[in-house]
């Protein structure tokens, strides 16, 4: 039968659907009312399903179909090639190169980002003056446009004119050619990502920290636990679900990284290359370049599906890893 006979939380028991029950002679008006009660919920939720089916679910599944083809829009080629694209993907050095770049930038950005966010949240979680000012300041980066900020950072990381090389020069470090080497370009892009997302994660952690009962800390303090110990043994374990959430969100975002590296390539002939040696080309850029740059939609779709699978696998791995750390004793 139907699914929901339970009363909604703390509400009264469900009212009997009296108005809709057909009286002896069903009048035109009562039929309409009945249709309204029965039909309205479906009418209300249908726009979402319509949009999602056409522009969300169908494209995702269709990506799989396209990936089984040699599919070009410009030339009109459309030939079924089975798993050839996947076969090629496995031995495609460029794809794996982009994968290593993506994972490298992902690791370089996510770990410091979440650790810093945790520390900032812990700091924000004290009684202080002007708490709102500090919190608002932390999310300023989130409320900017990624493309705009990527351009600003790219200038700041400029080899000759950038402020960052000037600043590290003050403490006697030689200028770094940020965009030319693989490691430094990853670091520069990771810093853009960190700048944007650290405050957001800090606020999420802060919200979770405020829900931790204070008597836990009280008891620990009585037992003589130091602040640091309280942080590691109470705060961090209590935050585990939140940490899992932020790790998964960062994984999904990090593996799809696109805007920052694309704009970090200003001044190069093809911005989807990620530098002349492809030193910071991410998987998403590679996918984009194949499809929209070289009219290889079939292979682009293959890369998209590989990325999708990778996101699921990494989210799962991270989920399990975080759940285990500091888990059962």
């Amino acid at each position: 039968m139907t699914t929901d006979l339970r009363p909604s939380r703390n509400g009264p028991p469900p009212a009997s659907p009296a108005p809709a029950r057909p009286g002896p002679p069903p009048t035109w008006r009562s039929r309409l009312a009945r249709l309204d009660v029965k039909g309205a919920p479906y009418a209300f939720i249908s726009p979402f399903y319509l949009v999602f089916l056409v522009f969300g679910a169908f494209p995702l599944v269709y990506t799989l179909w396209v990936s089984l083809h040699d599919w070009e829009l410009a030339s009109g080629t459309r030939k079924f090639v089975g798993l050839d694209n996947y076969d090629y993907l496995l031995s495609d050095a460029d794809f794996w190169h982009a994968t290593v770049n993506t994972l490298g930038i992902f690791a370089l950005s996510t770990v410091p980002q979440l650790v810093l966010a945790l520390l900032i949240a812990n700091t924000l979680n004290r009684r202080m003056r002007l708490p709102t000012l500090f919190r608002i300041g932390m999310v300023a980066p989130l409320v900017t446009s990624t493309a705009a900020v990527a351009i600003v950072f790219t200038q700041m990381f400029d080899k000759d004119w950038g402020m960052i090389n000037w600043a590290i020069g003050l403490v006697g470090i030689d200028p770094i050619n940020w965009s030319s080497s693989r490691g430094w370009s990853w670091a520069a892009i990771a810093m853009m990502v960190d700048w944007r997302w650290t405050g957001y994660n800090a606020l999420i952690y802060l919200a979770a920290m405020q829900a931790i009962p204070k008597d836990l800390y009280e008891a620990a303090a009585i037992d003589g636990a130091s602040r640091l110990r309280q942080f590691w043994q109470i705060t961090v374990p209590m935050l585990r679900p939140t940490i899992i959430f932020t790790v998964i969100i960062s994984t999904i975002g990090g593996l799809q990284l696109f805007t920052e590296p694309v704009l970090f390539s200003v001044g190069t002939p093809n911005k989807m290359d990620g530098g002349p040696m492809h030193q910071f080309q991410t998987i998403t850029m590679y996918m984009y370049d194949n499809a929209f740059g070289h009219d290889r939609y079939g292979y682009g779709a293959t890369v998209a599906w590989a990325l999708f699978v990778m996101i699921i696998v990494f989210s799962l791995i991270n989920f399990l890893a975080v759940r285990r750390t500091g888990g059962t004793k």
Partner: protein
Amino acid sequence: MTTLLAGPGGRTPGGRRAAAHPGRYRGLWNASPLTYLTLVVALALSVFPIYWMIIVATRTNSVVADVPPPLLPGGHGGDNVGRLFDNPEAYFAKGLLNSAIASAAVTVSTVFFASLAGFAFAKLRFRGKNGLLLTIIATMMIPVQMGIIPLYMIMVKLGWQNHLQAVIVPFLVTGFGVFMMRQYADQAVPDELIEAARVDGCTTFGIYWRVVLPALRPAAGVLGLFTFMQTWNEFMWPLAVLSPDNPTVQLSINNLANAYFKDYTLMFAGTSVAILPLLVVFIVFGRQIIGGIMEGAVKA
């Protein structure tokens, strides 16, 4: 006075000056100079790039060669913005207009359809509700970009390539929005109110419009804010489906970066104008944005 133990850092009922709280909380919640130092440094780092962008936008191009870099705005902001709008390759005015239209349309539509569906899931009874709600939660996990290639093919089939509806229609409502509104409606709208309206002869849509939507206003505001920001900020999909002469504002600054990547003041004037609406939103609604993030109402 009394204890005043509100949440740490939270506002206390009697004002923020909670002079006397029990001694054992001192070490835990009292901010030390080190705390303030940490926070001030973090604050400076998070605001500085935005500030620097505005400085450069108001100066002449020699700014990049200055040592040390200038820290105060100059008087050339007007010139730079003028050059920006005169620039034939950026299509800047068009980009701004396109972004404004697309963001407004997506925001209004998302708030409307998401609150409508959220109301249905929270308060109405119908067959298959739980299963459908589960599918909505599942859709939240799927990044739209994964389907970008077929999405593009659909646009080609529809003839929407390089038309503004290509960046509007696929985003008219999101699973995330529906889910968020459901969560809020579940708590914010008393069942009695709905029953009463029904007894008074309200249609279901009438109940939504007169009873539910007003009650959902705070959540609708947060959803609207973030939908607007997200649409304004979108880069990859417009880049794929629009051409450089019919850009969104993000593509306009991308045009500038392609052609004039050494003309920093021009580029920074562009980025400043491109984030202006976001900064206004941020300054006016900063508290609501923080509230939204901290209630978990906002997905990255």
